[in-house]
């Protein structure tokens, strides 16, 4: 689960990770009131969406008067912000964060993420703050410092020294501040079960203080049960409505661009089915894993969600029953044809547990739209042909 910048900064504050002061606003009036409360004569108006690249997309603007705060907040609230991470459809801005202006002397990058190969968190830092870190990693990988921290020993002095010498920080007072900053960030990462934290940029101001100018955080979904404070930060408007609806039924759904709807059990086979459709010259319309507890109701729901997409010209149901019993899926398909108007060909391949019973159920139902696939390859080929013929 991801959260907004302003929420990340609330968590930073709990851990004494320094940030500029700021207040969240839902309306231009609130934005102006917040700016007054913060004081000073320069403010930053920042769109709050779950995507990077907001500045380049026009979602982060500098205001030099309260009137300008109002104008910019009015422009940004309600705009559809398109960045390299939102996709071409962009994201609607519901909130702006009003933050005091900062005196930027230096821009750095600091993040914490799980290093899967080493199986421990790794602190990543770079002197190239403010740039897309993927570009830095690609163009100048030597400018990224990676410091793995074994949770068995936690963040030690040597990790801190590696960090500050790597960043070329020579002032002893600044070294101390940076080490303190990173150790708090690591503590937060561990205690809150974060999946990733990214501060880009982390700035040094004129006084030699380090501040998190931005903040991006994602959390381990499996650990949210023990963090009700984080769960409470969930912003439903940031999530895809269909994906969310599907998840309420235990279905894992992701929309794609193609024409063949897919309903599969297991994430691996679901991806493998998409790959097979692609390999045979078709295009998958979605990823859909019905999970291990699929029943008639969830299958019917799956059909409903797939068919919401007007581009779908055929549906390929590919089930290899282990825990999932094929007869239940077959009944679900019949159920779906009663509840929803299934107006495209449905290619069904059911193998594994109770497959013969399932074949019998489908045969007896005698529904015109249903085409039986004998195996994965045969089913995919028939789905591709059906989509082309439609």
């Amino acid at each position, binding site marked *: 689960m991801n959260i907004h910048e302003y929420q990340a900064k609330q968590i930073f504050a709990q851990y004494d990770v320094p940030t500029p002061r700021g207040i969240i606003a839902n309306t231009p009036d609130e934005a102006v009131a917040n700016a007054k409360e913060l004081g000073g004569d320069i403010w930053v108006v920042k769109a709050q969406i779950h995507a990077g690249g907001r500045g380049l997309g026009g979602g982060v603007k500098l205001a030099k008067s309260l009137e300008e705060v109002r104008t910019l907040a009015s422009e940004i609230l309600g705009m559809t912000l398109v960045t390299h991470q939102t996709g071409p459809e962009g994201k609607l801005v519901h909130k702006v964060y009003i933050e005091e202006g900062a005196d930027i002397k230096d821009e750095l990058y600091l993040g914490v993420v799980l290093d899967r190969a080493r199986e421990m968190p790794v602190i990543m830092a770079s002197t190239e703050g403010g740039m897309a870190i993927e570009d830095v*990693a690609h163009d100048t990988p030597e400018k990224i410092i990676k410091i793995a921290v074994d949770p068995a020993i936690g963040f030690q002095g040597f990790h801190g020294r590696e960090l500050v010498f790597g960043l070329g920080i020579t002032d002893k007072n600044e070294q101390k501040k940076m080490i303190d900053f990173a150790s708090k960030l690591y503590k937060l990462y561990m205690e809150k079960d974060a999946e990733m934290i990214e501060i880009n940029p982390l700035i040094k101001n004129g006084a030699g203080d380090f501040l998190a100018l931005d903040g991006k955080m994602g959390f381990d979904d499996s650990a949210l049960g023990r963090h009700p404070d984080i769960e409470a930060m969930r912003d439903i408007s940031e999530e895809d409505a269909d994906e969310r609806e599907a998840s309420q039924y235990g279905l894992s759904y992701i929309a794609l661009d193609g024409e063949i709807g897919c309903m599969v059990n297991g994430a691996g086979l679901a991806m493998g089915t998409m790959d097979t459709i692609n390999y045979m010259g078709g295009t998958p319309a979605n990823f859909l894993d019905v999970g291990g507890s699929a029943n008639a109701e969830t299958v019917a729901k799956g059909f409903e969600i797939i068919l919401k997409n007007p581009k779908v010209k055929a549906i390929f149901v590919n089930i290899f029953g282990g825990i999932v019993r094929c007869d239940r899926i077959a009944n679900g398909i019949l159920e779906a044809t009663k509840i929803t108007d299934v107006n495209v060909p449905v290619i069904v391949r059911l193998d594994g547990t109770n497959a013969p019973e399932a074949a019998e159920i489908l045969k007896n139902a005698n529904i015109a739209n249903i085409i039986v696939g004998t195996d994965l390859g045969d089913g995919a080929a028939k789905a591709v042909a059906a989509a082309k013929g439609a």
Partner: protein
Amino acid sequence: MSILVNKDTKVIVQGFTGKEGTFHAEQCLAYGTNIVGGVTPNKGGQEHLGKPVFNTVKEAVNTTGATVSMIFVPPAFVADAVMEAADADIDLAVIITEGAPVRDMQAAKAYAVKHGMKTIGPNCPGIITAEECKIGIMPGMIFKKGNVGLISKSGTLTYEGANQVCNEGYGISTAVGIGGDPIIGLSYKQLLPMFEADPQTEAIVMIGEIGGDLEIQAAAFIKENITKPVVAFIAGQTAPAGKRMGHAGAIVSGGAGTAKEKMEALEAAGVKVVVSPAEIGKAVAEVLGRK
């Protein structure tokens, strides 16, 4: 022969009396797995599915001589269960539970490694030595005994692959579902040499997917150490980039993690890579036929 488990392996079940534990332990017993007991705190002394229940893993191990534990406890208790198994000198823990927090698994795995305990999973179908021992949740009937070893991150692709191999007239020695979580126990790199050393296994199928770099590590290992033919499929060639993957997470392995990259690395290591999982069976027939 086979790897890791066979008909003589003594198995206990942690989370024995729960709904999932009961259902699958029953299936494993029916398959012929030598389940010698189970562990559920505060139910010690009872009998379940005709086997003794113990309060602790230590007690279960001391009484039964079990060397393998199959773990079905709820996600929040997985780390505790794995560490208890390691502490009780279990040799191999097979963790079926889905949804264990990553931080918990990090700590549990580190502890297991320190105690010399191997782990499989979490969030996996388990391990099966065909017609001898099933420790997990896979449908046993599709695994016919034979000479192909199988390693897969995905449960249903394990079934798909095994089924195709058997339909081609071959069979499975041992199949291991290693799971697709960010932190897992035994991986390709540890399992490949076991299959290489197993006289029954003549070919190896490895099924991977996008994310992480375990398949890239496997490719480098295969190139240097594996002489038996390997067939591979990597799921997710058509998966959209960035979905479910943290922004910063994408750079740690320096761009590694796409299906294309993994397929290229495996091909360069001499592996027969198939573009669709529908081709796994045919590819196995081809590499075994060529021998």
